[in-house]
């Protein structure tokens, strides 16, 4: 009895342990037995006024899980669906984005971390690297696409076909081994994709910052991109098996109410619209998500805006305050309703001279004093520009007609690259490398040898400009065409263009999508500037040093931008054609069999007639007679002739059979 009772007791203990855990973990991260943090969740929101009177709202949720053996396959905060996915398919890194609308690189920026990692092409983009041997990568990818498709209610499973995904080697992500990349430009994104995404958050959208996600306001925006990023955790616990970080971001560009102040032709009336968080997003933050370690709201002022504000302050004698703070909280241009808990200033060598400012609010406090709402009231006109990528990339189609065309990628200088390089380096030797990654579906038959590069309107020899190129030609219905290349452009380049000619292919009738007459999409090309980093360092503040959003900002990722999706009209058959084909085929068959039967019948009657009236001799009867005579003679005649005859016959039969086989195969 004694022996029996003890295991039961220990079992009870074991069972009660996980139940007691949530009560311990409330409010902060889960503390493991060995002391280090095992799972933590943070929620952050970044708001940023944009130069074209819109407001960027960037939600950032991060969920970290150390992979430990302590409680097997169970997690407290980390979504089980994702961890299972990671385990099963050995996903090392993954990024999935659902986007609606286009990121406007010209007026929303293309140089800062947000735009270069959160501006995504329309539709779905998925890439993943796997921790499996190279021959199993494709299988893992296929399984992954199906799982994600189910998880996110999207047709990601179309990425399973080998004709839709590609394996970039270096132009997309610098260090990647088992990378697979695929996009679905035509995928419509809506709430059915957002709901499963929200389910991965510990508080869903019931509490905390995620409760701001009022569907009508989010989808009213000009740009909407929800992203899910899996990456290995940097802190490696035992060296071998690191944990995983799930980063969920939602980037929305919203138009404050009062859509357009009626245009007046003087530039006086350029006061940006006043907004409040509750008017933008339709809700207020009621309180933090209790499971989150930190819950912060940031308001970012861009470098350009800060520079303008400083200039304004210098020009205008601001009477209210005598001592002008560097943090610009009190300034003549705008007013913030809530005083920030801390102000961060960008540090590091900055190209433009002025630094960006970040006002931080911690949500934990606002639970006491009612819901958190931030008002930004503009008082004076303000015009500023945003940091733009060194070269603005756009892509378009050339040519017309259903036969051939050309893809052109044009890069135009935004004036920034001169500032970047012109001062400190010699202009002649200075080179701006640009990575171009382009996937083309197989029905666009690109001729890679027709590549032409123009720099400043002058045609350049390809080897002079292209440093490195990798091309994998498309294979009909199997593989897409992939082109990765590194262009080295002179730093003072004004414009560069690259053209590639293609032929339009033909699809089989059942390969056409239901809306074939719309045309076919060529997914966005990715332009990366490997030497230009989109990193922002903010001076450290005690409560912000653990902010995942700011540590993301600090990462030295190259500036990346996506080009437009292109629409190529292909030749489409008349889809009512099958009926016509059936009709005409029936007619042809009727005619054929009719005449065939006619001929057969006639010959028989003729023969009969010939048998009866032997006096007549027609060519046919003569031939028959000849044949008969020959047959009679045959046994006596030399063997050679008979063998010749039979061999001819055999050849003929073989020929007919071959034709029939060919017909069967290729017809």
């Amino acid at each position, binding site marked *: 009895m004694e022996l029996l009772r003890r295991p039961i007791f220990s079992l009870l203990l074991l069972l009660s342990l996980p139940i007691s855990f949530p009560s311990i973990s409330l409010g902060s991260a889960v503390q493991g037995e060995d002391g280090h943090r095992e799972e933590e969740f943070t929620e952050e929101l970044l708001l940023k006024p944009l*130069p*074209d009177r819109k407001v960027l709202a960037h939600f950032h949720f991060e969920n970290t899980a150390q992979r430990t053996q302590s409680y097997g396959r169970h997690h407290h905060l980390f979504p089980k669906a994702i961890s299972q996915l990671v385990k099963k398919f050995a996903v090392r890194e993954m990024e999935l984005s659902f986007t*609606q*609308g*286009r990121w*406007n690189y*010209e*007026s929303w920026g293309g140089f800062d971390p947000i735009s270069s990692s959160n501006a995504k092409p*329309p*539709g779905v983009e998925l890439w993943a690297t796997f921790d499996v041997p190279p021959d199993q990568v494709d299988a893992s990818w296929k399984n992954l696409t199906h799982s994600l498709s189910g998880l996110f209610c999207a047709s990601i499973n179309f990425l399973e076909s080998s004709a839709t995904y590609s394996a970039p080697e270096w132009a997309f992500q610098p260090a990647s081994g088992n990378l697979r990349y695929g996009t679905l*430009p035509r995928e419509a994104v809506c709430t059915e994709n957002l709901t499963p995404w929200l389910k991965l958050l510990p508080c869903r959208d019931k509490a905390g910052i995620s409760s701001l996600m009022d569907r009508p306001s989010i989808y*009213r*925006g*000009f740009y*909407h991109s929800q992203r899910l990023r899996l990456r290995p955790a940097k802190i490696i616990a035992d060296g071998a098996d690191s944990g995983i970080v799930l980063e969920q971001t939602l980037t929305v560009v919203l138009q404050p109410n009062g*859509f*357009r102040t*009626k*245009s*007046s*032709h003087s*530039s006086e009336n*350029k006061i940006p619209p006043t907004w409040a968080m509750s008017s933008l997003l339709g809700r207020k933050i009621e309180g933090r998500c209790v499971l989150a370690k930190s819950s912060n709201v940031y308001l970012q002022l861009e470098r350009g805006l800060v520079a303008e504000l400083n200039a304004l302050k210098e020009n205008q004698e601001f009477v209210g305050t005598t001592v002008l703070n560097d943090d610009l909280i009190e300034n003549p241009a705008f007013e913030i309703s809530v005083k920030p808990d801390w102000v961060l200033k960008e540090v590091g060598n900055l190209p433009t001279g002025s630094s960006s400012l970040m006002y931080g609010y911690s949500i934990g406090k606002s639970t006491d004093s009612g819901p958190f709402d931030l008002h930004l009231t503009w008082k004076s006109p303000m*015009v*500023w*520009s945003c940091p733009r990528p060194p070269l603005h990339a*756009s892509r*378009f*189609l*050339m*040519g*017309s*007609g*259903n036969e051939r065309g050309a893809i*052109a990628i044009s890069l*135009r200088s935004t004036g920034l690259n001169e500032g970047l390089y012109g001062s400190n380096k010699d202009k002649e030797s200075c080179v701006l490398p640009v990575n171009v990654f382009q996937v083309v579906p197989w029905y666009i038959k690109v001729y890679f040898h027709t590549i*032409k590069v*123009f720099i400043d*309107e*002058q*045609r350049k020899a390809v080897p002079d400009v292209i440093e490195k190129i990798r091309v994998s030609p498309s294979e009909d219905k199997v593989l897409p065409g992939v082109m990765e290349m590194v262009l080295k452009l002179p730093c003072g380049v004004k414009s560069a*263009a690259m*053209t590639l000619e293609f032929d339009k292919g033909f699809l089989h009738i059942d390969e056409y999508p239901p*809306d*074939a*007459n*719309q*045309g076919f*999409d060529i997914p966005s090309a990715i332009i990366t500037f490997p030497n230009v980093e989109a990193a922002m360092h903010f001076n450290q503040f005690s409560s912000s040093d653990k902010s995942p959003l700011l540590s993301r900002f600090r990462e030295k990722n190259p500036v990346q931008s996506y080009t*437009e*999706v*292109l*629409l*190529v*009209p292909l030749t*489409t058959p008349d889809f009512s054609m099958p009926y016509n084909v059936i009709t005409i085929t029936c007619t042809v068959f009727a005619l054929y069999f009719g005449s065939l039967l006619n001929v057969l019948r006639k010959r028989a009657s003729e023969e009969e*007639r010939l048998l*009866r*009236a032997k006096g*007549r001799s027609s060519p046919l009867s003569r031939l028959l007679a000849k044949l008969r005579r020959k047959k009679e003679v045959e046994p006596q005649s030399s063997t050679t002739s008979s063998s010749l005859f039979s061999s001819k016959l055999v050849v003929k039969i073989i020929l007919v059979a071959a034709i029939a086989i060919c017909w069967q195969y290729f017809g």
Partner: protein
Amino acid sequence: MAAPETPKLKPRPIVRLGILLISHNLVVSVICCISGIVALLLLPILAKNTYISENALMPGSANPMLSTQDVADANKLVKDLMDLKSESTSSDKMQRVVAEYISDLGAEVGYQKFYPQSDQFNPLHFFSLPDPGTLQEKVNCSSFAINVIGIARAPRGDGKEAIVLVTPYNFEDADLLDALSVGLTYSVFSLLTQVTWLAKDIIWLVADSRCGEYSSVAAWLRDYQTPVFGSSSAADSSTCDSSNTFYGLKDSSVIERKITDNFRRAGTMAAALVIKVIDKSEPFEDTLSLYAEASNGQMPNLDLINIVNYLAVHRQGLHVKVQKLTSLINAKWLTVLAQIFEYVGVIARRLNPQWKFGIPAAEYVDGTATLASSLYNQALGVPTGPHGAFRDYQVDAVTLEFSPKVYSMSKGRHKEFLVQGGRLIEGVIRSVNNLLEKFHQSFFLYLLTSPGRFVSVGVYMIPFALLVTPLPIMAASLYTKTNNLDSDAETNDLSIYQKSFTWLNAAKKVLLVHLWGAIVSLLPYAICHLGVSTPAMNLAVWSMLSVLCYLLFCLILGVRSAKSGKAQWAVLKSATLSAVFIGLCLMSVVNFATAEFGALLLVPMCLVIYPLKSDLHAGGLMNFSRMACNLALVLIGFPPAAFILLKGALDGFHSIYVGDFWIWVESLWAWNSATYLYITMIHLPCWLLCLHVLLHTR
């Protein structure tokens, strides 16, 4: 016993039918020709009402959003433009004003500078678009024009497709109506920058029409679709030194304005609307004229015309018009014909109330006039407006020409007109915006008999088919006849050789004459380089050279008549008929309307043609009438004569000038019309062959 079993072998039914047709060729030809012409005249009766075929278009399903505020802004722009004009400011100032207005709406603005091209005959680029490289040589550096392009991006769209609005505007010399057309488009554009339902980007092209409306639109399209990178454009800027006025347009003071001289683009074009306002002095109603014909008789999808027509009539209450041959409306013969058709219709209905094919006489006359104009414009192959430039890139486009009523113009009440027109354009754009796929559902081959009625290809093919059918039948019968004739006469081997020689001779002749036609078609290229000034002189040189060329052909290659008898002209006629048949069928594929007109002129001539000498020898009344008929038809069949007669019939004979034909032909090749090729390479040779038969001497 054997006797009933061995009857003459019966040929197949189809062969028997052929033999029957060939043996009764005269009856068949007469019936076919007459029924062909009757069928052509019946087309207005057979026209169907148009219907919107693509369900996704949903025209008029949403309430128009264009407010008076947009119109007030537009009115302000009109006023500004008129003020600038009265101050006689330079054109680039006006362009800047337009650009600022567009930019204030939050749209992107770009300029495009281009040099107009001189039209030159280039035989090698007939159907293809001219090579951009060669175009650079022909630019005229002294004059240039600048288009202003505004692009409103769809807020949530993916930017793959775009809808184009075009307003031709002459920045140097524009009147109130032109400014109104800009204002009209501006009001719609300003609305479209605010709406949330937009799925396709909107491009507004203010085409600088100082060098012609078509050429400015074509220049923009060329830059949009086939831009030139690299050396050639650099050479262009060096040869024509880029004047600083263009760069002066940039307004550096305002940073946030998205005005650049970069060529801005949006996605694939889904449809284009060209908007014009003209004063036609309409007494009572605001009217809308539709122009749709592009080069070589290509038409935009019927659905585009349908939605414009539907919205204009049912939503905005505009009076919609399409082009008509006005001289036909007053024609006596047509009125009589219309009354006959009406009478027949009435009788038919009396016999059976279900037969409702009769239409009122006035409607018939109207329909015929519209149909004739539609056919004529398609046959000419010259686009009827700037929309033609879009068709070259497979974009459906139509010109909307508004003409406000006199009353509103005189009172200066533009607002109502702007609201009405703007709502129509908004509705059309909204419909096209609804479209997921490109226009493909409805007809591309049709003729309009009124804005709401059309004749589809299946119907208008019938008259042509009927007209063309007698040609092969007649050719076959002539051939068999000559064969029988010869075989009856003599049956030795020599005659067989002779026979095949006549046949070969005729074929050779036909081939040579067509070769001559090809050379004649190329002659204008040389004439252009000669530098003869007046059209009449040009025409004279052309005809002289042609005749010379023909004589040379006769001398060198020798269209020598073999010493064969009667048969020769018949064989020649047979060969000619086959050539005409092949030529017309080929042309019907390229431009149906041209083939239709060609068939009307050529078929009767080719069928009736008979040597004059034989008729003179016979000298009967029958022969005499045939002779007269032949002469008349040959006269009409000669292209310049036909042109002059047609022109005289339409405009009156007093205004005829010999050089007109040259001018007309010049316009044909300037627009790359296939009609030119048809005239010189099919019509003229066939006419000459007929002349050969007519003047045949034994």
